[in-house]
């Protein structure tokens, strides 16, 4: 009789709580997806009828389509740049032991523990005083401040776990250090790098505060377009856009799970 069994009152209490909390966590997202297919002109739950009209409208709305493309572009650039910067720094921090490397590591990661809102305000003031970048570039730079630490945090443990003798063996067999890195180290730590890149991408794509504060009005990322639209009116195309995002995220997550299952099964 395990502690999670339903044979005693505590087990029943536990299952009940778990069911309620799971509903609490998941229901809002489910409600949005469900109501995006409803025929009523306002967002309603339970939805009535079935229609794809709101999806049509959402996909015909340049604000959302452009927002999506802008977000995609920003996230892609941020992912590539922050991965490169992060991997280089992680490599330096793990492989070259020098006094203070631990301190530098925790300093570089520290932007993650600060409120995004405060970072956004600081960067707003900063960019208005130092116009080193304009338009969307400001947002890209801003996202780097949180995505680089994020890559660092994922890649450093991966590099630490990596068995260095493999790399040394490659050099022993005649590969130059740079070649050894690209031929041996990189392929081995690739899953970790993918994870870091995916995390950076999602972080940038989903980020709200900096986007609201720094995005150029002519090129609004999707989160900003949604943020302002949500405040104005409850139109069902919003539910459609949200559902698309939810379903894309879900699909990525499932694919990731399946891929890692297959990889670990091999």
């Amino acid at each position: 009789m395990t502690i999670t069994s339903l044979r005693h009152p505590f087990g029943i209490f536990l299952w009940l709580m778990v069911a309620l909390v799971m509903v609490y966590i998941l229901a809002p997202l489910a409600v949005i997806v469900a109501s995006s297919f409803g025929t009523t002109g306002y967002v309603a739950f339970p939805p009535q009828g079935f229609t794809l009209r709101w999806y049509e409208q959402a996909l015909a709305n340049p604000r959302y389509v452009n927002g999506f493309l802008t977000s995609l572009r920003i996230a892609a650039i941020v992912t590539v740049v922050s991965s490169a910067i992060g991997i280089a720094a992680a490599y330096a921090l793990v492989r070259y032991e020098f006094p203070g490397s631990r301190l530098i590591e925790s300093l570089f990661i520290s932007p993650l523990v600060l409120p995004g809102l405060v970072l956004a305000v600081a960067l707003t003031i900063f960019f208005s005083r130092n116009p080193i970048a304009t338009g969307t570039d400001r947002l890209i730079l801003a996202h780097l401040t949180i995505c680089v630490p994020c890559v660092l945090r994922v890649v450093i443990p991966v590099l630490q776990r990596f068995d260095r003798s493999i790399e040394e063996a490659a050099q022993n067999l005649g590969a130059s250090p740079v070649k050894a890195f690209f031929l041996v180290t990189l392929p081995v730590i690739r899953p970790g790098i993918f994870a870091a890149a995916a995390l950076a991408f999602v972080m940038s794509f989903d980020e709200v505060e900096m986007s609201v504060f720094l995005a150029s009005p002519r090129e609004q990322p999707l989160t900003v377009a949604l943020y302002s639209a949500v405040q104005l009116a409850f139109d069902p195309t919003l539910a459609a856009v949200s559902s698309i995002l939810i379903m894309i995220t879900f699909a990525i997550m499932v694919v990731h799970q399946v891929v890692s299952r297959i990889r670990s099964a091999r």
Partner: protein
Amino acid sequence: MGGALEPRDRRGLILPKWLPPALLLLPAALVFGGLFVWPQLGLFATSVASPPPIGFATYQRFLGDSFYVAVLVRTLSLGACVTLVCLICGFPLAFFLARLESRWVPFLIMIVSFPLWVSAVVRSFAWMVLLLRNGLVSIWLRDAGLAPAGFQLMYSFAGIVIALAQVLLPLMVITLYAVIKGIDRDLENAAMNLGASPGRAVCLVTLRLARGGIFAGSLLVFSLSISAFATPSLVGGATAQLMAVAIYEQTLEINDWPFAATISAILLAIALSVALVYGRLIDGRNVPVR
């Protein structure tokens, strides 16, 4: 230094030993220094520059104005309420996941953490739909006689707590899951074997041993909820009397940057001190390892 990029280029030219790591670290250092440290210092400088060159007028204004003191208190109590809800909902779920013997556990954890991957705007929008006057939750509350006609949770403190707690719950669950997983389940079995009912066994043993982790998770959720922006400003409306909303207002609508910087600095100070305690807890021996 064998495995690392060696301090020598192809032509055999000897480079100083510190050069390769320095070059590798340079871009990250630029990002950290130029886009993080410098702007933060600028923010702080802005907050203590009225009247110029050095003055604390904005701090006096914030702490002297009962409206802003109320905003601060509301923000802190929002943090406390959200943390409490997350604890009450999060512990049973985390305990369940940590003790369930099933190959479905990874899948369940994935499902629980799924909302973390969805943008805060989308999650807040979902709650707005449920909390508005004609939203499901508000209708239920009215039908159950728990709320008067015309009542809606939208734009209310309770509404913000409900929405924000849902947003942060996965973090609490994941933190507590790791802590409980580290507590030998045979300790609960031993307690039951000695005559404690399952509920008592959990209270007397698991809860006691997870105390450090519970505290750490609470600090994390607290610090995130007092500084959250999207959910409070959407569910609470643009006039919600919270620090985050006030900062937004002062920065983008009123353009009073010294005051915005001041509110940010105060928020930052609170979040940072909480984060420091949290860091100590995670590193230190306060989190039981067993």
